């Protein structure tokens, strides 16, 4: 099926989310749609899936104009969305999830489990999507869960498949497998739209690339000839330096040291199992690993959010294993939390308030328990400017900022303190290329100043770009330690998947 969007325009109050967007995707080809956050990719896909009605323009399938008053109409027309956040019920089995909403029934409205199983099996065999129909979804790795999502849309008769950031949650090996699935779907004549911000993946898998910026199509690129630099420049509108420049830095004394740190859940099962490592002054240590292998707990135990069962944590030679988060913060630890909306800021607070969220009680922001509003505002204006938070209005609420600017605000709060240790968890997750570049520069600058920096990231590219040393966390244990120059993403990927040294 050939899909064509003609002159799609979608307005929101104060925002032109899509501005006369034209694009074409043909049967048996992969169209990559790339663009920064806020470029209008999601809006466009919501128009395509019937969630939004375009203000202008039309959608054509095989040359016939389509009207999608709701998602049901888009599905009926053969459009299937695979969302970044899976729409699965964890306690249901695979086949139950797949048939949910289109259940085959026996007389009396009873679920025909046998038929449902057969339907799921047929599709999974036809497209090479190996999955056990009776497995519980929650017991499956993320890569397999994604297959379940794909089977779901195929069962509903989708011939145009839209993948929204499909590789964000996959390991390098799972990404390879996913590319195999896409190739299979393509060979069977499906039309595939692949939304991503990972330029290398767009180049690797797409037959054509459409770049969106500020709601407009700024151009198409041929993956055979384009380079990541060219694409990044199209996306951002200015030349982007994708390679992080870093010179050798002078290593100093250990700032953070973990010895045999074990953290357990309420039932004594370990989140972290005898983790030991050091972070030296002037060094960036990167923690690689798939989400859920103890990274969150590692950061929480270092910053004092979680208590440890065994082992010690030392900061500049002093034992801080049992200090409160407040005392660790005051001792000289900065922390960029992994989820900016959930734990990094208070969405309903102003930018100025968010910028003092963890230092509001110190001078000059507070004197005798009273907030010093003039000093808070002066400091905020300086930080917003220095860290390029846009728009630079300190009375805006935090939730009004885009992801990248919210992250820059948090980085401003944490990096503006002159402290020896910075713990950055997912410092650039889900933000635009321009902000990533900026935050990476700030991290390198802190390294040059001789700070000790711990980076936790699920983005392997980021780990390789920044780290002086890479530790791989798997199942709560440090399973490998490598210098980036002496390893490859493929090798680290294997460790992330559980291979031991």
């Amino acid at each position, binding site marked *: 099926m050939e899909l064509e969007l003609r002159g799609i325009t979608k307005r*929101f109050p104060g925002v032109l989310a899509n501005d006369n967007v034209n694009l074409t995707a043909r049967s048996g080809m992969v169209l990559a749609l790339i663009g920064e*956050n*806020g470029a209008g990719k999601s809006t466009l896909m919501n128009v395509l899936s019937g969630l939004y009605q375009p203000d202008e323009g039309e959608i054509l399938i095989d040359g016939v104009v389509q009207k999608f008053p709701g998602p049901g109409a888009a599905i009926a027309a053969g459009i299937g969305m695979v969302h970044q956040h*899976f729409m699965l019920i964890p306690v249901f089995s695979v086949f139950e999830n797949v048939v949910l909403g289109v259940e085959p029934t026996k007389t009396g409205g009873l679920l025909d489990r046998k038929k449902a199983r057969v339907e799921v099996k047929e599709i999974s065999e036809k497209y090479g999507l190996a999955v056990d129909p009776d497995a519980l979804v*929650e017991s499956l790795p993320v890569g397999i869960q994604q297959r379940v999502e794909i089977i779901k849309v195929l069962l509903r008769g989708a011939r145009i498949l839209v993948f*929204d950031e499909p590789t964000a949650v996959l390991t390098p090996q799972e990404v390879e497998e996913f590319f195999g699935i896409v190739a299979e779907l393509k060979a069977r004549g499906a039309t595939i739209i692949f939304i991503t911000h990972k330029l290398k993946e767009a180049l690797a898998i797409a037959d054509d690339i459409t770049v969106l910026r500020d709601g407009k199509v700024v151009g198409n690129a041929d993956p055979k000839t384009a380079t990541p630099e060219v694409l990044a420049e199209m996306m951002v509108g200015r030349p982007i330096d994708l390679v992080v420049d870093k010179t050798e830095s002078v290593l100093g004394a250990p700032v953070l040291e973990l010895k045999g740190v074990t953290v357990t859940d309420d039932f004594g099962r370990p989140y972290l199992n005898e983790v030991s490592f050091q972070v030296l002054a002037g060094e960036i240590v990167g923690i690689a690993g798939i989400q859920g292998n103890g990274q969150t707990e590692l950061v929480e135990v270092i910053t004092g959010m979680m208590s440890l069962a065994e082992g010690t944590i030392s900061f500049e030679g002093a034992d801080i294993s049992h200090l409160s988060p407040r005392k660790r913060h005051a001792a000289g630890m900065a922390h960029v*939390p*992994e989820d900016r909306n959930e734990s990094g800021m208070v*969405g309903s607070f102003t930018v100025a308030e968010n910028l003092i969220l963890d230092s509001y009680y110190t001078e000059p922001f507070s004197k005798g328990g009273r907030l010093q509003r003039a000093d808070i505002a002066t400091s905020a204006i300086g930080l917003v400017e220095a860290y390029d938070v846009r728009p630079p209005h300190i009375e805006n609420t935090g939730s009004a900022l885009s992801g990248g600017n919210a992250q820059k605000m948090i980085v401003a709060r944490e990096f503006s303190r002159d402290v020896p240790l910075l713990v950055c968890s997912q410092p650039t997750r889900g933000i635009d290329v321009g902000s990533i570049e900026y935050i990476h520069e700030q991290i390198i600058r802190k390294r040059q100043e001789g700070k000790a920096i711990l980076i936790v990231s699920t983005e392997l590219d980021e780990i390789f770009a920044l780290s002086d040393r890479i530790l791989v966390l798997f199942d709560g244990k440090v399973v490998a330690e490598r210098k980036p120059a002496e390893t490859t993403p493929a090798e680290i990927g294997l460790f992330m998947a559980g291979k031991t040294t």
Partner: protein
Amino acid sequence: MTTTQMPSTDNPEPKNSRSFMQQLTTGTDWKSAALIPALAVLTALIIGVVIIMLTGSSFGDAMSAYWALLQGSVGSLKAISETLTAATPLILAGLSVAIAFRAGLFNIGTEGQLLMGGMFAVWAGFTFIGLPFYVHIPLALVAGVVGGAIWGFIPGFLKAKTGAHEVITTIMLNYIALRLVDFLLKTEIFQREGRNDPVSKTVEASAQLPLLLGWINPGLRVHLGLIVALAAAAFIHWLLFRTTTGFEFRAVGANPKAAKYAGMSITKTYVLVMVIGGALAGLAGAGQVLGVLDRATPGFSSGIGFDAIAVALLGRSNPWGVVAAAVLFGGLSAGGQQMQVSANVGIDLISVIQALIIIFVAAPALISAIYRLKAPAASTQISKGWGS
């Protein structure tokens, strides 16, 4: 959706993730702060007309009932005095609920805290004899503060230590307080000599709150408690928006996880805010027994603690909003008496109108739809629980 954490998608649309509690406390634009409550009141009054007419009265009867309501609330100095007298405990109790809202807690226990505060105050009021008023009044008020604070501390402490939900514990403490008052009023300490029914000794004249307008007419009941209540509103406003403690309250209320990550102690905040909330409710109870009743009788709180929840909601948990809402409710209550007497429309209608106001305030989307207002960004989200 699976539990796996994933990077956020790009999203140019307004975020739609405010919790119900946030919606109640952070209506910062003028529309949600003033326009919606005003329209909610208007709508409730219009529905009130319909209800009056359904009972067989004419439109003219309904209008004369509202005229009586207006007369009884602001039509004379006496009416204004009655309005402010009724508003006084509502301001304090409303602040009690509001400050808890701000910290993300639903304090249903204002009624019980008010009762305990009143009992402490009445005890201090009749026990100490021969004190000058400038010692006795502050002493009795402080006793009320202490009584309420103790009753607020209990649910705060239970929440902090065991995670017990404050809605459950405060409701239960209301029952305990209610029956404890009945019991205490029959004990030798409280019961008036020569009486068999549960009524306390009378508060000494030196502890009775002076009437503000007594020099014009001794029948004007508005008393010093009003000044105390307004001072409390100013103090709570200052506390919330000008101090580090208030910063902590608001941060914990708006995003407890971020507050924890910023090094704040959530448990300390919960205990402290419940103690302050209890103290305010206790002050409301003290004001009633020292300023209006001069004694304690069973159930002397007469539901003020529950009306206070409505006042805090209508006032959007802003201290000055609470004052305005309390005056409105005070006016409805004072005017309702007049309506009952001169227009023969039952005072129960006032409760109906108050309830309707709260429904419309809690469902701003409804008001926006009725009056074709451009819906606020987050108006159509579903409330999932109390603040979390």
